[in-house]
């Protein structure tokens, strides 16, 4: 067979096109023209289209250019579908997939104390435990410990409260990090008296010290103590979190390591495994270490205490994985729906391309060849959609990150990197193949004979209708799954928002005050500070009340403590009660408007000179004194020299961690009756109840603090409403995104239904004309068309409801107050879908009723 140049094929196609046009212009029907052309082609045999992908691509490009409307609709659909996927994937990539930015990050793990029960399986390490892990294990290259801390930086300029961390000297080599300027800590600086050294973050260095190298050796006041700056870490080092501005050495002196402090679990222990050591081996190594604890420190450990290693990546990513994967699944479904729509468009277009395809077949193109050509076109348009999708993704990325809650780690690392681009390319090709394959097989299967027999109309359209209906049914099913998922989240969100926090959050300003122990060495000094501040605040117009607590609700802090109940001695140490402990000023419950259910709240008479008192919430009362009143009972926090606190009141439960959290038992003690004799005023959170806008009060608080102590910074100034809003941010993020994707899906499904019904109406113009001519009522015609569309929607909805019942189970952990099979959602969402489907059917159906019977009959 001779090798024909490519231009020959093209010339022949043009020739046939011209001939067809001329024949039609001369009055021939489509069928006659096709027959004439087929006769003209009888002797074709020789030319075989050159098997050449470049040619396919050129041909595809030309074909897309000649149908700009079609191409635009398809591109827009794909850009949205692929763009949404690229955007969510870029988040998944940055948060979950990309390794942490440390060398050999997969060998770094966190060591948790573990009692193998919920709530006590992630116990931080005490200094002594850390030292034992470090000295007695063999599986690790480095071990380190740290704790986050707030530091007051004073002296040069405005006092500032900075986020920081106390770390062992080994933390930096563990991460393979070295200072950009100066040096890191030495092990000797873990001793008291030598620990007044600090490392600065790159951002603090540039912001406050003009990035001057002379900063090394400079002495600044940190928490009122003169501290020497020994180094600056590079911008890339942000451990334990990006907010950290100062590192100081963690104290590991004799006192910290004493058995008295054995139970003071305040540090996070990290370990870098030696190369080749597996997590299981390292775990076994640690088990050998913890086995000695029980015998060496009998009073400190409950039975079953071991150490558990969790990879750092898992630790950082934590609970964000599931919602992100659910979102990724959701955008995947949106893309599938987009594919179905594009497929349907291609099927409809295949009908108008049948002449071209028939001619190519006639010119010797095999079916495989045609499928390849058509698939080239699909993949090409999908790739173009992918490029636009990346643009959509880069636009929506900022929006996405802005909407994302702070609880999603590593968000600042979200970029369109090579992996995202690769993923998008892969998704695009797969998308193109997916939406292209059915139309390509259908179109190429339409043999020339069939096309010529009746102008192609009947056979082609029947196939189109069958495939098209199937596509629409699956679209409806997919979008219903998404809608129900979104519906469940919306319903949950409404439920959560309706939860009463148990206090009146309106008009409240909150802020944090950390008095440095170096200047406020005694409790009385701190107490005087708060007295003066509160007095100044109460004198301000618009301030209704002011109080403070060591841990306000929705502040993210707050811890538990073991205590003793008078007259009840637990047989085993692990049976000792342990509950949330809050240390509050007098007037706290009144300021927060937490109802006192029984007894009284704290007053300014509850001082050290007076008998010690405590208040419990209803949950604690119910748990420890079921069926009786706790008022008059006494508790203590130390067995050796018990100070008994008499319970004088019971208050209502409040939400502390979040609106969706269960009520926890809480024990309150007055801050003027500290648990231990050498107590100083710990960091406190102040709450001001104002008559007007609480943020306006912020400046007056600042002034009053400065008047009492000009060196004292305040931080974390927020309204309580803002705090509650933030606690809902993760839930809102998931809900908004899923709702957006579901609406997109619903729109696409609606367009899909509209498309197929409108096509059917066009196809059946003649039939409708006959019916009308025979006396059918227009209403009947409309009902018939709508019924057919709605039947498709109903079939899709049925499949969708069943799929949703199976799929929404993965969302159970994201729901609140609704079950994964929530009847309201499962009833309401199909109704919504039905409404959209009805509109999508009604519009083309109305057009059907306007058919002029005579005109319709003439067209055949």
């Amino acid at each position, binding site marked *: 067979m001779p090798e024909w140049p490519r231009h020959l094929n093209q010339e022949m196609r*043009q020739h046939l096109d011209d001939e067809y046009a001329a024949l039609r212009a001369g009055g021939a029907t489509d069928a006659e023209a096709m027959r004439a052309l087929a006769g003209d082609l009888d002797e074709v045999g020789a030319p075989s289209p050159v098997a050449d992908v470049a040619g396919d691509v050129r041909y595809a490009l030309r074909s897309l250019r000649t149908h700009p409307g079609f191409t635009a609709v398809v591109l827009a659909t794909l850009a949205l579908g692929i763009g949404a996927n690229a955007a969510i994937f870029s988040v998944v990539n940055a948060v979950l997939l990309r390794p942490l930015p440390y060398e050999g990050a997969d060998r770094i793990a966190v060591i948790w104390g573990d009692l193998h029960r919920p709530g006590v399986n992630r116990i931080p390490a005490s200094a002594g435990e850390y030292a034992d892990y470090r000295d007695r294990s063999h599986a690790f290259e480095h071990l380190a410990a740290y704790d986050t801390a707030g530091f007051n930086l004073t002296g040069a300029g405005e006092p500032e409260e900075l986020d920081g961390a106390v770390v062992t000297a080994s933390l930096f080599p563990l991460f393979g990090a070295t200072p950009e300027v100066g040096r890191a800590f030495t092990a000797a600086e873990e001793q008291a008296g030598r620990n007044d050294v600090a490392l600065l973050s790159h951002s603090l260095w540039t912001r406050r010290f003009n990035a001057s190298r002379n900063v090394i050796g400079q002495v600044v006041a940190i928490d009122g103590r003169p501290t020497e700056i020994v180094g600056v870490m590079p911008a890339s080092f942000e451990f334990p979190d990006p907010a950290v501005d100062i590192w100081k050495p963690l104290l590991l002196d004799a006192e910290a390591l004493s058995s008295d402090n054995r139970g003071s679990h305040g540090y996070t222990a990290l370990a870098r495994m030696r190369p080749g050591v597996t997590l299981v081996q390292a775990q076994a190594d640690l088990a050998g270490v913890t086995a000695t604890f029980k015998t060496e420190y009998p009073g400190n450990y409950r039975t079953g205490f071991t150490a558990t290693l969790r990879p750092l990546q898992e630790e950082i990513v934590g609970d964000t994985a599931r919602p992100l994967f659910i979102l990724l699944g959701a955008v995947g479904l949106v893309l599938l729906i987009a594919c179905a729509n594009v497929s349907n468009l291609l099927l409809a277009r295949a009908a108008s391309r049948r002449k071209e395809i028939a001619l190519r077949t006639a010119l010797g193109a095999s079916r495989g060849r045609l499928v390849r050509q058509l698939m080239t076109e699909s993949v090409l348009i999908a790739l173009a959609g992918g490029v636009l999708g990346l643009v959509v993704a880069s636009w929506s990325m900022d929006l996405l990150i802005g909407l994302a809650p702070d609880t999603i780690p590593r968000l600042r690392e979200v970029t369109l990197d090579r992996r995202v681009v690769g993923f998008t390319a892969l998704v695009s090709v797969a998308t193109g193949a997916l939406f292209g394959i059915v139309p390509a097989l259908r179109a190429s299967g339409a043999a020339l004979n069939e096309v010529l027999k009746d102008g192609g109309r009947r056979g082609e359209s029947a196939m189109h209708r069958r495939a098209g209906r199937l596509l629409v049914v699956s679209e409806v099913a997919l979008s219903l799954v998404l809608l129900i998922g979104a519906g469940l989240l919306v319903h949950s969100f409404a439920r959560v928002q309706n939860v009463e926090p148990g206090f009146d959050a309106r008009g409240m300003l909150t802020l944090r005050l950390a008095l440095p122990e170096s200047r406020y060495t005694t409790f009385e000094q701190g107490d005087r500070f708060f007295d003066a501040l509160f007095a100044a605040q109460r004198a301000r117009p618009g301030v209704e009340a002011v109080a403070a607590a060591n841990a306000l609700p929705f502040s993210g802090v707050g811890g538990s403590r073991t205590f003793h109940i008078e007259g009840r001695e637990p047989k085993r140490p692990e049976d000792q009660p342990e509950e949330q402990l809050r240390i509050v000023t007098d007037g706290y419950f009144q300021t927060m408007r937490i109802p006192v259910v029984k007894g009284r709240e704290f007053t300014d008479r509850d001082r050290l000179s007076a008998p010690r008192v405590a208040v419990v919430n209803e949950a604690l009362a119910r748990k420890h004194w079921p069926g009786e009143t706790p008022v008059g009972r006494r508790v203590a926090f130390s067995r050796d020299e018990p100070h008994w606190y008499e319970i004088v009141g019971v208050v209502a439960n409040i939400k502390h961690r979040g609106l969706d959290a269960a009520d926890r038992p809480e024990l309150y003690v007055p801050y003027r009756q500290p648990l231990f004799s050498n107590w100083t005023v710990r960091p406190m959170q102040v709450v001001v109840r104002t008559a007007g806008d609480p943020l306006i009060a912020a400046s007056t608080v600042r002034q009053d603090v400065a008047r009492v102590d000009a060196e004292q910074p305040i931080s974390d100034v927020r309204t309580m409403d803002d705090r509650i809003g933030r606690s809902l941010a993760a839930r809102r993020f998931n809900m908004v995104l899923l709702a957006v994707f579901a609406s997109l899906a619903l729109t696409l499904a609606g367009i899909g239904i509209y498309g197929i019904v409108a096509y059917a109406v066009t196809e059946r113009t003649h039939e409708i004309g006959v019916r009308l001519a025979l006396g059918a009522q227009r209403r009947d015609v409309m009902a018939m068309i709508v019924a057919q569309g709605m039947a498709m929607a109903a079939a899709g909805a049925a499949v969708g409801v069943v799929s949703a019942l199976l799929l929404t189970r993965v969302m159970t952990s994201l729901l609140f107050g609704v079950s994964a099979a929530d009847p309201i959602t499962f009833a309401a969402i199909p109704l919504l879908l039905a409404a959209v489907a009805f509109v999508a059917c009604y519009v083309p159906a109305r057009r059907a009723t306007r058919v002029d019977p005579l005109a319709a009959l003439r067209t055949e």
Partner: protein
Amino acid sequence: MLDRELKKGSAELLILSLVEDQPRHGYDLSKLIEARSGGVLTFRVASLYPLLYRLEKRGWIQGRWIEKAGQRRRRYYRLTPSGARVLASQRSTWREFAEAISRIAGVEHA
């Protein structure tokens, strides 16, 4: 309709003469042949274009894609100098041939 062999032999001459005055594209050529022969001569797609290709390969005609205002891009063929020489020699051969036929068969020469 002419015998197939005869048509094939004359086809080269027809095409070369039609592109002698001005470049023409394939569809134009087929329409001209059909029209000027009064429908007696027609070329099928499958024979016309391969023929054009053979003529071009021999260097007698040369094709070029040309886009004219308001029209689609088409491949126009023009006569090359060597094509002109071939045309001249074929013309005289055909003239002699046709005269011989008419002398013998008494066919009136047009």
